[in-house]
C-alpha cells in the first residue's frame, strides 16, 4: 500500500510539499551565506564597491601582517561567554525541572511559568530589564534597593559586565532547557522512581541514579543546541552592555556586527562571519557524528 502510494505520487508530491520551503531556505539562507563569503574577500566599505583583496581580511584577522589587536580579546570573550552561559542554562534548566517536577510538583507549574516568561518577552524588553536592573545610577533596580537601605551604589555594568551578560543569556536559555527536561521527566514511568524508593534511594539518589541517566539524550541535545546558540548570540550583549566597557564583553558576532554596521567595514566584518559559519558547520558535524544523526533525530526523549 505504502509502496504503491510512494510510486504513484513520488517525485511530484515531493516537489510540491518540499518545494516552497526549499526555495525559502535557498533564498534566505544560502544566498546570504554565499554573498557574505564573497564580501569577505573584498575591502567593501561605505561605498559598497566590490574590491577583491584576496585573503587580506583573513590575514588581518589572524594577525598576519597588519594585525587587529582586539581579536585575541574577542576570542577569549566569546569562549568565556559561551562556556559561562552554557552551564547556567543546562544546569539551571535541570535544577528547575527536577525541583518543579519531583520535589514540589504542586509549585511546578508556577515555577516553570516564571522561567518561561523571558522567552515570551520581546528580546528588547528582556535586554532592557537587565540593563535597567544593573543600571549604574541610583535609578537602576539594584542600586535603588541599595540606596533605600543606605548602601552606596555600585557600577554593576562596569564592574561585572561579563557576569551580567552571561546570566542574562543563560537565564534565557533556561526556558527551553527546562521545558525539554520537564517533558522528559514527565515521561519517566512512575513505577521506576517508586521502585528506586522501595530499593532505599533518597530523593537525591533517585535523581542521581535514575532521573539524570534517563535524561542523557535531552541533556546532550540541549548542550549542543545552546553551545551553538550562545556562540552566535550577540543581541542581548548589545542591548545590555553594547560590548563594553571597552570591549570587555565584545563577543565574536557582535564584533562582526560592529565592524560591518557601525564602522561600515563590510569586507572585514564578513570575514568574521565566514569564520563563525565555518566553526558552526564543523561543530554541527561533530555533534551529529558524536550523537549519531539518526539517533538524535529519531530517538524518543528518554531511553526506556
Amino acid at each position, binding site marked *: 500500500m505504502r509502496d504503491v502510494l510512494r510510486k504513484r505520487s513520488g517525485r511530484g508530491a515531493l516537489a510540491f510539499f518540499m518545494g516552497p520551503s526549499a526555495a525559502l531556505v535557498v533564498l534566505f539562507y544560502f544566498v546570504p551565506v554565499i554573498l557574505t563569503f564573497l564580501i569577505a574577500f573584498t575591502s567593501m566599505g561605505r561605498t559598497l564597491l566590490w574590491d577583491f583583496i584576496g585573503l587580506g581580511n583573513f590575514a588581518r584577522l589572524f594577525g598576519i601582517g597588519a594585525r587587529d589587536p582586539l581579536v585575541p580579546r574577542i576570542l577569549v570573550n566569546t569562549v568565556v561567554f559561551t562556556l559561562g552561559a552554557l552551564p547556567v542554562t543546562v544546569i539551571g534548566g535541570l535544577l528547575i525541572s527536577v525541583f518543579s517536577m519531583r520535589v514540589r510538583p504542586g509549585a511546578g507549574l508556577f515555577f516553570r511559568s516564571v522561567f518561561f516568561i523571558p522567552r515570551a518577552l520581546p528580546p528588547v524588553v528582556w535586554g532592557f530589564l537587565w540593563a535597567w536592573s544593573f543600571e549604574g545610577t541610583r535609578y537602576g533596580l539594584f542600586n535603588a534597593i541599595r540606596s533605600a537601605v543606605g548602601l552606596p551604589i555600585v557600577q554593576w555594568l562596569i564592574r561585572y559586565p561579563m557576569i551580567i551578560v552571561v546570566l542574562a543569556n543563560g537565564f534565557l536559555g533556561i526556558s527551553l532547557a527546562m521545558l525539554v527536561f520537564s517533558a522528559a521527566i514527565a515521561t519517566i514511568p512512575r513505577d*521506576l522512581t*517508586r521502585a528506586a524508593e522501595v*530499593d532505599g534511594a533518597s530523593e537525591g539518589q533517585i535523581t542521581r*541514579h535514575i532521573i539524570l541517566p*534517563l535524561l542523557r539524550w535531552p541533556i546532550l541535545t540541549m548542550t549542543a543546541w545552546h553551545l551553538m546558540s550562545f556562540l552566535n548570540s550577540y543581541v542581548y550583549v548589545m542591548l545590555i552592555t553594547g560590548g563594553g566597557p571597552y570591549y570587555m564583553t565584545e563577543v565574536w558576532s557582535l564584533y562582526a556586527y560592529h565592524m560591518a554596521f557601525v564602522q561600515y567595514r563590510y569586507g572585514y566584518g564578513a570575514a568574521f562571519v565566514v569564520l563563525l559559519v565555518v566553526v558552526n558547520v564543523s561543530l554541527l558535524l561533530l555533534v551529529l557524528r558524536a550523537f549519531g544523526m539518526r539517533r538524535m533525530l529519531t530517538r524518543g526523549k528518554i*531511553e526506556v
Partner: protein
Amino acid sequence: MRVSVDRLTKQFRDVRAVADLSLEIRDGEFMALLGPSGCGKTTTLLTIAGFYKPTSGTILFDGRVVDNVPPRDRNIGMVFQSYALYPHMTAHDNIAFPLKLRRVPRQERETRIKTVAAMLGIEDVLPRRPGEMSGGQQQRVALARALVKKPGLLLLDEPLSNLDAKLRIVMRAELKRLQKDLGITTIFVTHDQTEAMTMADRIAVQHQGALQQVGSPEDLYRRPANLFVAGFMGTPPMNFLDVSLEATGDALVLRRESFRFSLPDPLKQSLGHLVDRKLILGLRPEDIEIKPEEASQAEVYVVEPLGREALVTVKVPGAMLKVLAPPHIQLQAGTHVGWHVMPDRIYLFDAGTEEALLVPGS
C-alpha cells in the same frame, strides 16, 4: 513479618479506591489480593508500601504503626506490574542497586547477587539490559531485585500478567515454591482467580474498594459469603438464576417460570423462613448434569470442547446455563436436553442483599 491493615480507607478526590479494609496477614503467609480491574488492589498495595498515606485507618508491621515510615525504610521488596527495571542498567546492576544503596560491601554484594540469580535461573542475562530480555526474564530480574535485599515483606502487583499463558503456569508454581522456601510474608495482587486459587494460602477478595471475604481458596470456593465472591471464584463461573421460594402444600419449591425445583427435607427446615422471598439460585457448571431429552424445553446453544471436558451452553427459558459435561457426550447445537442438579450442590443468595443463604455442606 506480620502485617495488619486496620480499617484502611483511601480516597482520591471523588473515587474511594479502598473502603474500610481490615486484613490480617500472618508471618510467612502468602496472601492474594483478588478482585476485578479498578477495585483498588494496587492502591491497597501502594498504601501498604507507603507511597500513599491512608485517608483513614492504619497499617501495622509486626504490631508497629508504620503510617509515617517512608517506603525506603519499610524493608519491603516489590515487583511492579510493569517490572520497573531501570532501563539504563544491566540486570546485574539492577539487582545490585538496593545493595549499593545499603552500602553492602562489594564482596558480599556479588555473592548475594550470584545466589539470587542462581535461585531464579537468570545467570545468563546478568550482563544484559532490560531492553534485551524477554518478559519472563525481566520478571525474574525484578523478582531478584526485590529478594536480594532480604525484605520482611514481599509485595507483588500482578507480576504474571505480562507473561504468555504457558510461562505463567510455570512461574505460578515456581513463585509458590520460592515463597514457601524463603518464608517471606507475601502479598500478591491479581485479578485472575486461578492465580489466586493456585498460589495463595489465603485469598482476600476485594470489590469496589471493599473487602468481600477472606479465606482459604477452598473456603471461598465452597462457602462464598456473597454473590460477588461466588461469581468470581471458579472457571467457568457459577450460573445464577432468579427464583422465588414457594410453599405448595407440604413442599418447598424454587420456581422460575416453568422451572421447578423441590427442596429435599433437610433443606425445608432451614429455609422455611424464606418463603416468598426473591432469591438467586447458584449452580456451578460442574454440578449440572445434562442428557438428551426430547420433551425438554432446554436446548444446547453451543458446545466448546476443552479436551478434558466440554463446556456446553444450554438455553433454558429466560437464561443461559454453562455446563461442564464429559467430553464424550454426543451433543450438538439445537439438541434438546434435560438438566439435573443434586440438591446438595445448590447455592442460594438473597436477591436484595446478595448475601449467601445456603451453600453446599452447610
